[in-house]
């Protein structure tokens, strides 16, 4: 505080004291050291790491969001069947990855999922419900296997899995929420453009997989 302010404090008296007390309280409140609310530190790290993992790769994010977009385009019951199918089959793929069961062409499968799901959104493809579920489930295995192979040791397996599944489900929910614009004409066009972008990104990932 400058000397001019001190002079002002002398002039205003109680107001300056009140101001200083407020500043003092604010500083005390805002300057605490670390606070550990729940001391099971290693386990919390597992949950946060699991929450972060599905959103750490653009190829995964685009595929999971496009599942939601496609489901929104297809309407009920696909809008909930596809997002239910994907996490369960992906978790199965993740289980295989964790167990060390080999799966060939994982990166190619992930890239192809971007291309196919993007094209499905672009063309508003309407296959039979079972066929849509099989397509989504087939590609989910590749995504799950890639995640399962990359999961770090040491963290809490259960909390990591909880975070992982929640993040995946929220990505689908994001796709479904965006897909709500399908009810308007401009929204349908926007979704198809998004599908084209996703398919293009999938083609780029495919090129990278072979590079």
């Amino acid at each position: 505080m400058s000397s001019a302010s001190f002079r002002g404090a002398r002039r205003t008296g109680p107001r300056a004291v009140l101001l200083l007390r407020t500043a003092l309280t604010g500083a005390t409140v805002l300057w605490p050291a670390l606070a550990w609310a729940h001391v099971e530190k290693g386990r919390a790290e597992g949950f946060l790491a699991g929450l972060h993992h599905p959103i750490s790769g653009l190829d995964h994010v685009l595929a999971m969001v496009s599942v939601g977009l496609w489901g929104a385009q297809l309407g009920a019951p696909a809008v909930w069947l596809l997002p239910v199918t994907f996490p369960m089959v992906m978790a199965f793929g993740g289980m295989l990855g964790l167990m060390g069961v080999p799966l060939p062409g994982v990166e190619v499968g992930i890239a192809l999922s971007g291309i196919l799901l993007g094209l499905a959104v672009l063309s508003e493809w309407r296959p039979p419900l079972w066929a849509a579920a099989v397509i989504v489930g087939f590609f989910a295995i590749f995504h799950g296997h890639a995640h399962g192979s990359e999961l770090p040791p040491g963290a809490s397996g259960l909390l990591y899995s909880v975070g992982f599944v929640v993040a995946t489900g929220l990505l689908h929910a994001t796709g479904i929420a965006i897909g709500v614009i399908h009810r308007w004409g401009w929204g349908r066009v926007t979704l198809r453009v998004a599908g084209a972008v996703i398919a293009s990104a999938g083609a780029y990932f495919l090129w990278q997989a072979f590079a």
Partner: protein
Amino acid sequence: MTSALVRRAFAVAGFLLLLPAPSHAHLMNTGLGPFYDGVSHFALTPEDLLPALALALLAGQRGSRTGRLALFALPGAWLAGGFLGLAFPTIGSAMALTTVSFLALGGLVAADARLRPEWVVGLSLVVGLLHGYLNGSAMALAKLGALGLVGIVATLFVVVALASALVVTLRAPWARIAVRVAGSWIVAIGLLLLGWTFRAA
């Protein structure tokens, strides 16, 4: 007078700013007392919380009568199993039980399985006895005693009451589907847990 106050305030502020000690919530050194340790144990342990939640969702899906039966069957069995665990503790791993609970209960919720009330009560008794037994064993080893177990069961009662009552009241199709989605997430967690159990070295 005022200037002396200002100087004193600055001195105190400087002292407080320069000497902050780490703050630990929840009395980590002293614990919360056995009852609240039981409450926090249940609320922070997904191995117990998620199967109980899945069973509550399942009971709620089957209507108010099944929900009411499960509300007393599950905590009752959990308490009985807990006392068994306190009396005859084990140090066995609960990973297999947790995995099976996640897969079976989550799968039933996801499928919206049309089980008769007796089946849901039977499941509640089995799940409650097994999980309660493991909880009781853990309480015995941690020397929390019966009061910790009571904390667990009280929290379980509240969770089952709230979750099953919520599901019973749901009428919108999308809301009931959201419950099934929650079940599928529990299955997915169970599958990953199975992978962790048999994780390749």
